[in-house]
């Protein structure tokens, strides 16, 4: 049989990003219960939501634990330092749960100069990109009667800079689709006052708000907007309203907020390692933990699917180059959809390292008796994923 294949897994299990890793234990124990898992040893490290720490534990995994393959998930703050470390060390790494632009561009020396961008040898990433989220958002807005005036809420962090980027972010695409964008500028996370943005939006007659704030900032913004009589027809927000708890924190004002949906129990995909459907996995999670499903569950699961798949196609599992080749050659039908590094839908510079997964749009709907459900309302780009309703304007 030989030695077990060593997988390193880094995620933010404590600290501000811990919600992303909430399902880790569930997924890991699921994985461990599989037959195929007998060939693997998974070493889990906590980044403590700290990029410095993420890089450190990645080094430790490579150097001390001598892992064969690194897996890493959740936000550029975690994926980028780990991927940079692996790339420098020549250890293959698969990452996910970060839009590919902040992942790819964020690791380039000069993010402002596309001519200097270089592909990676050992880093692979599967997730969607800004072009997808823009397409989904605009399609959602198209379902409503609006003046096509959009206000942007982009913080000065990995995600915000990517979303607001004048070349690869929202601005060029929105203008080409006939939207006007009011972008007051990058603000720092944990800002206590958004009246400048609200005033700018009011002045620009904004009817649609979009952006990628962190949860406390969106709560502050949204509450202040209501107080100051700013009532847009649609608010499509990334990151801040990813998790149901964050929406619940908004009280009843969270109803009909919209967001991109990367994974849900109604996604028509099945796991390649245990055959469970997306719905099965979500139900199992709720049964095991008593908690509502969240989107990262599918992607963390898929991370292990891809690892198993790639290692299965590698003859010498201690040779990083072979593993990298195997990953690059993947054609995997996973629980988050098809993963293949064939460059589909990507600009040339990112084609070797990124695989895009499907994206649809959803709205949070207030349930009778409290709590929210995420209902898919837009699937033009991915007709195979069923919708559960249509886009409704904010009340």
């Amino acid at each position, binding site marked *: 049989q030989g030695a077990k294949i060593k997988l390193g897994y880094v995620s933010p299990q404590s600290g501000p990003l811990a919600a992303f890793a909430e399902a880790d234990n569930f997924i890991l124990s699921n994985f461990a219960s599989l037959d195929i898992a007998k060939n693997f040893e998974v070493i889990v490290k906590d980044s403590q939501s*700290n990029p410095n720490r993420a890089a450190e534990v990645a080094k430790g995994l490579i150097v001390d634990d001598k892992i064969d393959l690194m897996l890493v998930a959740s936000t550029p703050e975690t994926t980028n330092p780990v991927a940079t470390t692996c790339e420098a060390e020549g250890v293959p790494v698969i990452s996910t749960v970060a839009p590919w632009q902040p992942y790819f561009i964020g690791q380039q020396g000069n*993010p402002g100069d596309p001519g200097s961008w270089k592909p990676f040898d050992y880093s692979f990433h599967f997730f969607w990109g800004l072009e997808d989220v823009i397409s989904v958002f605009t399609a959602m807005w198209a379902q409503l009667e609006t003046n096509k005036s959009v206000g942007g809420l982009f913080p000065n962090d990995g995600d*915000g800079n990517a979303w607001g980027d004048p070349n690869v972010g929202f601005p060029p695409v929105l203008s080409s689709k006939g939207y006007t964008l009011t972008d007051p500028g990058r603000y720092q996370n944990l800002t206590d006052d958004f009246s400048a943005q609200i005033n700018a939006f009011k002045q620009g007659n904004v009817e649609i708000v979009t952006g990628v704030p962190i949860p406390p900032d969106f709560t502050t913004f949204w509450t202040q907007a209501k107080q100051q009589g700013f009532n847009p027809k649609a608010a499509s927000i990334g990151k801040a309203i990813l998790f149901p708890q964050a929406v619940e924190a908004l009280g009843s004002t969270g109803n009909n907020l919209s967001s991109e949906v990367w994974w849900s129990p109604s996604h028509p995909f099945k796991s390649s390692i245990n055959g469970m459907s997306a719905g099965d996995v979500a139900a199992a999670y709720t049964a095991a933990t008593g908690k509502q499903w969240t989107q990262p569950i599918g992607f963390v699961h898929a991370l292990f699917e891809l690892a198993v798949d790639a290692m299965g196609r590698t003859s010498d599992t201690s040779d990083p180059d072979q593993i990298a080749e195997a990953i690059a050659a993947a054609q995997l039908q996973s629980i988050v959809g098809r993963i293949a590094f064939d460059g589909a839908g990507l600009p040339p510079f990112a084609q070797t390292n990124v695989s895009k997964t499907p994206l649809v749009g959803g709205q949070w709907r207030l349930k009778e008796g409290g709590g929210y459900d995420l209902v898919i309302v837009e699937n033009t780009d991915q007709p195979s994923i069923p919708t559960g309703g249509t886009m409704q304007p904010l009340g």
Partner: protein
Amino acid sequence: MAHSSPYASLTRTRASRVAGLVALGLAVLLLVLPAFASRGLIQDLFFILTMLTLAQFWNLLAGYGGLVSIGQQAFVGIGAYALFGTVILAGIDPVPALLLSGLAALLLAIPTAYFAFRLQGAYFAISTWVIAEVVRLSVAQWKSVGGGTGTSLPRSATGSMWFTQAIETLFDVRSAAARDILAYWLAVLLAVATIGGLYWLLRTRRGLALAAVRDTMDAARSVGVDAGRMKWLVFLVSAFGTGLTGGLIYLQKARISPDAAFSVTDWTAYVIFIVVIGGIGTIEGPIIGIIVFYALQTLLADYGSWYLMVLGLIGIAVMLFAPRGLWGLFSDRTGIELFPVRRRLTGGLLSHPHHPESKDHG
């Protein structure tokens, strides 16, 4: 009264002579270590040595200069960003660019000191923190090194770094390992130079003046010590050293972002814990402190938040029950000092055996 022998001023003790030899041996050992140690050990030592260097500079500032700064992350961050900026934008080799890290921190220290020296005690501490925040927020606007997103060192720059080729062939290792060894050697040099330099400084008359200023500023001025200049000296020297270390740390990490490089927890709080747990105002203290810190981290890091909780509790306990730190406890009991700076007057009347009080109280 006749002199029975001429007077002399001595600092060395038996322990210090032994310690000096051991230190020399240790330094040599550290330098040749890459020949037979594992990469894991080299990396752990890199972490230990760089944190130790940061701790020594904070110790110089707070323990010897009485300047309790909680804004050292400003210098780590600016040093790191100076490195990334010159490497990425000007294409300079990272190794010489490290010097710019120190220089950038030095430059930043001048306005910082000009401002913060107007304030005392707690006001001083908080103003250094605010200044560090201002620098962090300003650097986060610097778009060509990634703004708030941060950036990575291009592989083209790190791959062909000075000396790495030579190290690769010397130890027959891959380039990632060669870079580790290079960074490690630089860290060894920096730590040895820092401790040596600090010890040298304390043994010059400036070291005496530092102690005098810390004890009573008025009296120090009245005997001709330029207290203001001592404060500037200490502040600028530790800024330079902290910036240099910051550059080195991020050279090894190869990825930077404002939140990471200007982290008050990583570069100031931990450093303060290290110094205080070990014993502030001694060169030995930070050395003990880093060992405790590293041991804790190794033992507890996998327990996430528990690790930080234990670290916090130990810091509190030391402050409450052993304010002079672990080394203070040890040295009070045993009287041992590895880096003695006390000048002892000997000879003359003191060489008469019938002076009962003439024994060393220090």
